[in-house]
Each structure stands twice: as C-alpha cells, then as structure tokens.
C-alpha cells in the first residue's frame, strides 16, 4: 500500500460547493473508482428554526479535523480526501459540513466518510446554538449519546479492507 494521502481540511464561514469540490478532487486523475460525498445540512425542524449559530474553536477546529482525516487516510486506501466545516450563522437548507472521500473501491470510500463524520460529531470543537423562527433565542444543541455510540463502533473491529 502506498503512503497515506494528505487530506485537505478547511474551516470557513462562507458556503461551499459540492460540485466544485468533487470536480477538483477528481480533476486530472482516472484512478478513482468510487467517490462518496457527505453533506450535512441545517434542517428547519418543521419550521421552528430560523438559524443555527455555529461557534468554533479557531485553530483547534482545523487541527482536530485534520487529525481525524489523517486517521481515516491511514486506515483506508484513499486517493483523495476533503473535509470542509462552516461556522457562523447558517439557515435551514444551507450546508454545514462536507466530506469527500475518493478511493479505488467503494467500501473504503463509504467507511472513510462515515468514520470522519462520526468522529467529527464528537471530537471537532464546534457548538450549535438555535435561533427560533418566532424570534426567541433557543438553547445550545445538546450532544446526543447516539453520536458517542457511533464512534465506538470503529473501535470494536476494523472492517475488512475490501
């Protein structure tokens, strides 16, 4: 197996574009057999949510996501890997996070993207505050136990490299 690739990680206020990122990821190469993308979007919660305010820890946010992405690149044979996470005010329907994982084989691409999202949810220093549609300030979104459990599965048994 060749050396792990160097993931691209960006923390930014502005929106990103799935098409542009996937085109950039695959540009000029034809060894990619599988590209998995994950977009996390802001839901409107049945119309009750006006916006999410995403606070982050500058510096550590990028460092931690880079650590997670590098672990994925060491664990699965990837051709390319990009992770982008936004901060600031994000409205329903807008993008929050994007992961692109390219590999020769589909299972590596699926697993790497899912692994990154599981660890990003529980380890990347971002916090969401809700702004309600009725103008009232919502509270801070609480962490979900199910997200902690999701990270646990990657410790149990490494999936076979298919």
């Amino acid at each position, binding site marked *: 197996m060749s050396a792990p690739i160097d993931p691209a990680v960006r923390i930014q206020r502005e929106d990103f574009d799935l098409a542009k990122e996937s085109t950039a990821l695959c540009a000029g190469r034809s060894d990619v057999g599988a590209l998995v993308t994950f977009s996390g979007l802001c839901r409107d919660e049945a119309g009750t949510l006006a916006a999410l305010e995403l606070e982050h820890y500058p510096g*550590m946010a990028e460092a931690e996501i880079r650590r997670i992405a590098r672990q994925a690149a060491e664990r699965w044979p990837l051709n390319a890997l990009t992770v982008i996470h936004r901060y600031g005010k994000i409205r329903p329907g807008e993008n929050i996070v994007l992961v692109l994982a390219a590999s020769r084989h589909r299972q590596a691409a699926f697993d790497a993207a899912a692994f990154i*999202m599981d660890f*990003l949810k529980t380890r990347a220093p971002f916090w*969401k505050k809700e702004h309600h549609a009725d103008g009232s300030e919502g509270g801070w979104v*609480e962490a979900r136990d199910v997200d902690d459990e999701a990270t646990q599965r990657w410790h149990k048994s490494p999936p076979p490299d298919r």
Partner: protein
Amino acid sequence: MKLVYFAWVRERIGHAEEEIDLPDEIVTVADLLAWLAGRGEGYEIALKHASAIRVAINQEHVAHDARIEGAREIALFPPMTGG
C-alpha cells in the same frame, strides 16, 4: 496561562478568555476545574457538573486526570455538537 471558554461555558463564565496564574497545588485538569468553580457565581454555575466539561490543552483533547504542566492554553467547553 491562557484559559479559553466556548459555548455555554463561555456564556456562564461571562467572558471568552483570560490569563490566570495558577496556585502550585493545581496539578491536574480536575484540580483546575474545582479551583475555578470557587472563583465566583458564573464559574460555579458553568462548572457545576464538572464531568460534563470537555477540556483541551494546547488544542488537543485531554481527560480530567491529565496533568496541566506545560500548558500554554487550556480550553473548557461543553460536549461538541458540530457536523
């Protein structure tokens, strides 16, 4: 030493960061949390459930039994909700 706070820890303490000189007996993260909780009502409320507080030293996650020796920046924050 620089302390930084995020999300509801920041809101309850009332500011985002501060420089603090720690007493010599503060050795671990747990010591720091207990000592900070005695610094006033905001700190007390923010750190009441100490086990819920996540901590990073020099921008890396650490457990509460980690030693803080050598820390330039210690961050306290709630469980993360990004992604």
